[in-house]
């Protein structure tokens, strides 16, 4: 059925619409000119006094795949205390707050008005698993980033200087696994971790036995990424994550690709930057490096980042940065999960607790907000919690409120470590984001950085009809003072519309739908002789055959290709 969303305050940054009262028409799953919709035939939503935005897009959230599922397995307590009941004909059941089961993941995003999410770290060999979980994740569109930095075959070619094959095989791996972008995690570290080494590897350290450095990996992938015209840039989790003083490594990482940028285009995305913005030399004199990072980003258009905000309370850290997780296990001393995938990647899982009175955690909490509030170009600064590392994604409403209200921040300051606050600049920042800003960092900018802003992340004619309506009247609510309302209203969308259908009403799921999985596809054909060579390599390195590695299209519920090259 057609929809007509009438008289809402529309925030649509891609089209420069900043809170104007407009009508939005929906037909056949797309946004159409409202004049095309006949109000007598359509479902009319009275959005007077409400906020209308494109559906939210999460650019980095660990929601599916081998690591996430083992996280679920490791945390029965999380699933015991948090659940959703099955409702016949409406939705499935589920459990888990920090590592929700797949159905629940979809429902929770939809309830907040989010309609798309990116699983940011899948090891190629197990990506079929990732897709099977994404297939069971309803309500949202999805895609995944492929872990390639420690790929034995790619590094063979890279270290031999065979950039042609290196490039072609990146294409092959992306196509074989139906993935969307290149993910580099603590570049090169998983190779060293095979021998239990690699913790603290820096960008110019040599990686045994290849004799290349993380810098070589980052710049080579970046170059190929640009050549291939992939819709997203390389997505980089920097070296030395979570180590005091690492902001310098982050600066070096960002600089490493600056000379490659063409016409100032973004060519590197630094993910969960909070974890890589620490100054100081040890945990005792830790400080915030956010100013330096923000300065670089403000002055260099070739970098984008997402913040990786933490929130206080329980979290489950899970990354493909295995040595880091092992180090963290020594701090938390509870449970540690470590896994390695042949020739490709490693990962770790450690449940963790961020405490308000804790010096380090206070600084971490400040850094994420600082990175956002110091930004002069929010189109390159995205809201994430690196779910479930910093906090579950369900804390977005809270973080939005914090970004929009200095009052709220001050309220929280009272409970934090004083020493930690002194080391942070957040208390001195007065900036409060507007609803327009929020629409940028949660909708428009992620769509643009993913290279899908022609049909996602906006409400212009022809866009996918993914819409969120919040019960916020910016003319009546004092956003800075009434921060609890912001938090509350963003937690429960008044309406979420996915692909033109009303799926959430009054914060509750009213209809279950399944979104699309996006993957990249290239126009170039892969040379047959290279495939023969690859088959040999597979026989030598892997325990499955090349032909069984290729994920068939039929294995994925709704697959849609984004063509590149």
């Amino acid at each position, binding site marked *: 059925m057609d929809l007509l969303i009438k008289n809402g305050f529309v925030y649509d940054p891609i089209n420069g619409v900043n809170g104007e009262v407009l009508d939005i028409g929906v037909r056949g799953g797309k946004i159409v000119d409202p004049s095309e919709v006949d109000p007598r035939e359509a479902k009319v939503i009275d959005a007077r006094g409400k906020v209308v935005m494109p559906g939210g897009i999460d650019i980095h959230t660990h929601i599916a795949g081998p690591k996430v599922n083992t996280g679920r397995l490791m945390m029965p307590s999380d699933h015991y205390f948090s659940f959703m009941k099955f409702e016949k004909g409406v939705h499935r059941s589920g*459990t888990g707050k920090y590592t929700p089961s797949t159905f629940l993941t979809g429902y929770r995003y939809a309830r907040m008005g989010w309609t798309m999410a990116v699983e940011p770290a899948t090891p190629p060999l197990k990506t079929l698993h990732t897709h099977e979980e994404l297939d069971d994740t309803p309500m949202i569109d999805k895609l995944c980033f492929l872990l390639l930095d420690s790929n034995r075959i790619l590094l063979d070619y890279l270290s031999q200087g065979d950039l042609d094959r290196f490039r072609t095989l990146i294409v092959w791996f992306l196509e074989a696994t139906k993935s969307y972008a290149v993910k580099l995690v603590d570049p090169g570290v998983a190779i060293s971790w095979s021998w239990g080494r690699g913790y603290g590897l820096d960008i110019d350290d040599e990686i045994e036995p290849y004799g290349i450095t993380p810098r070589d990996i980052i710049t080579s992938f970046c170059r190929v990424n640009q050549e291939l015209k992939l819709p997203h840039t390389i997505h980089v989790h920097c070296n030395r994550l979570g180590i005091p003083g690492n902001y310098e490594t982050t600066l070096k990482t960002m600089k490493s690709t600056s000379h490659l940028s063409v016409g100032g285009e973004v060519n590197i995305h630094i993910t969960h930057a909070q974890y890589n913005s620490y100054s100081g030399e040890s945990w005792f004199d830790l400080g915030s490096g956010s100013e330096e990072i923000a300065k670089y980003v403000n002055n260099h258009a070739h970098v984008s980042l997402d913040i990786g905000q933490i929130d206080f309370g329980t979290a489950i850290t899970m990354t493909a940065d295995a040595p880091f997780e092992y180090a963290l296990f020594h701090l938390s001393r509870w449970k540690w999960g470590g896994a390695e*995938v042949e020739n490709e990647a490693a990962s770790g899982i450690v449940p963790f607790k961020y405490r308000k009175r804790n010096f380090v955690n206070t600084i971490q909490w400040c850094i994420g907000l600082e990175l956002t509030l110091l930004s002069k170009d929010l189109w390159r600064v995205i809201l994430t919690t690196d779910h479930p590392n910093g906090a579950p994604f369900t804390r977005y409403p809270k973080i939005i409120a914090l970004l929009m209200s200095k009052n709220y921040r001050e309220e929280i300051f009272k409970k934090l470590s004083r020493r930690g606050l002194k080391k942070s600049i957040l208390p001195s920042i007065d900036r409060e984001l507007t609803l327009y800003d929020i629409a940028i960092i949660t909708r428009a900018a992620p769509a643009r950085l993913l290279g899908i802003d022609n049909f996602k992340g906006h409400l212009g004619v022809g866009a996918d009809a993914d819409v969120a309506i919040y019960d916020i009247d910016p003319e009546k609510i004092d956003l800075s003072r009434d921060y609890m309302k912001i938090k509350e209203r963003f937690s429960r969308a008044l309406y979420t519309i996915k692909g033109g259908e009303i799926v959430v009403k009054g914060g509750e799921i009213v209809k279950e739908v399944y979104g699309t999985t996006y993957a990249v596809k290239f126009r170039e054909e892969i040379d047959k002789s290279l495939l023969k060579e690859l088959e040999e390599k597979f026989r030598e390195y892997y325990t*499955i055959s090349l032909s069984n590695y290729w994920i068939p299209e039929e294995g994925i519920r709704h697959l849609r290709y984004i063509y590149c090259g």
Partner: protein
Amino acid sequence: MAGLNLVLVTGRSLSQGEGLDIGKTTKDYFEGVAIIELDGEDLEALGVVEGGKVKVETEYGSIVVRAIKSRRKHKGIAFMPMGPWASLVIDPNTYGSGMPTLKGIKARILPTDEKIPGIKEILERIYNIRVKEIPKETLSEGESVSTASRVIDNVACSFCGCLCDDLEVEVRNNRVVKVRKACSLGSSKLLHSRENRILNPYVRENGVLVRVDLRSAVKKAAEILANAKYPLLYGWSNTSVEAIRVGVELAEYIGGVFDNTSVICHGPTIQAVQEAGFVTSTLGKVKNYADLIIYWGCNPLNAHPRHLARYSAFAKGIYAKSRRDRKIVVIDVRETDTAKVADLFIKVKPNSDYELATALRMAIRGYDIESGKVAGVNVEKIRELAEMMVSAKFGVIFYGLGLTMTQGKGRNIEELIRLAQDLNEWTKFVAIPMRGHYNVVGANQVSTWTTGYAFSVDFRRGYPRYNPGVTSATDLLNNGDVDAALIVASDPVAHMPAKAVENLVKIPVVTLDPKWSLTAVASTVVIPVAMTGVEVGGTAYRMDKVPIRLKKLVEPPPGILSDEDVLRMILEEVKKLR
């Protein structure tokens, strides 16, 4: 009468494994499984000749079986293959774990003149099931349409958790005629895929199974499930991920319990992971790197025959190039076939693996161990192993049912995982469970991503809950808590403790299986399905959680659908009823 007190260990064996393909009502199965393996000296002490009959008595029951002289020495320990005979004497109590005690049970063995009961007798006399006759059906040979054959390569074997994906299968006239590269278990499954098949749906009427059409069978199945207050949906380790997904949906819809066979294999491993975490890798990592391989409480040469050659001891890797570059250790209660190829065999006293793991944790830290022996092992040997462990460059422990099924269960694994975690302070070490059925890992995976829990998931309250010891299939059946059951791709009547089977056969049971299993014979509704990995494709997860696509090699018998399709039909029908 002269009797002997021994420790009884039950487990998988080659004949038990092959029995899955040729059928459990055959003479071969009877001869391979209605046995007890005794040490030569024990046999002599009993005054029984090889092949003579003995009575096995435990606190939980007794049964007469044939005595076999073991090829190896394991005085004081007796071995019985898993199956309906062993089920009568094992300890059904799970002590809150969901896992009955299947190994390390005190037993008394006596010579006897009593008869060894056959399958039919066990079903009829002990479980009160009217068997009458197992419907005999033969798959027609069909017309030879052509003699041309085609070879399908890179086929994944859908037998054990190794999921070897390099098989070459020759197909002629819609039949598998030749299998290359598989082990005997794998090729037996493929070559015998047409034997012992169920070719028609059946519904039990007045005590006997009567042929019906698919529609009526599905209808009847749906009625049973829709009318049940607390149904159990059990099995799932020998079918595809696609089918398992529908299974979860069905369980959720009817508010039942969704449990998979890991409850009687590696359920305790999952509980250990919940306590301690894990440290693991895919098998390729072992193949390429491992210079120390420890098989603990598992016997891959029998249960996972190609494991050593493809992934571990004998594999050709990048850094560990051959057997010569690796040290092999076997830890077991008896000298297994795998132990024969080891550099070091450590014979652990039954029920003391936990102690051994603890002693190793102490030894690697250089702590003093006061007593001279731990778990029946000399401390010098423990130190020797500890030294091997810390000086390895990449070590791995493969562990099996020898740890999960004995006393301590999950605690054994927890200690073993902690040992492996500790070792990472010195070197690289991982621990990998040897999973049995080809897709039991898939059952855990799907269960976890859809519900948050890997097995024993209870939907009674409309959302997933998990409490092994209460919501586990074994306990639910032991206690007679469930009032109907759907069994998919599993044979609980052959493998569950007698007490559980007694209760299972009292309630209406719907069974989906390609072949006549004992459970099928005892069911209320039997629906034949295609063989996954042979006649239908799908995804399965290898023991190291690597997903692999199974191929469709031949057409299923006429009119026979996949598990997934039949489950969907049942679900649709159930939706009409409630």
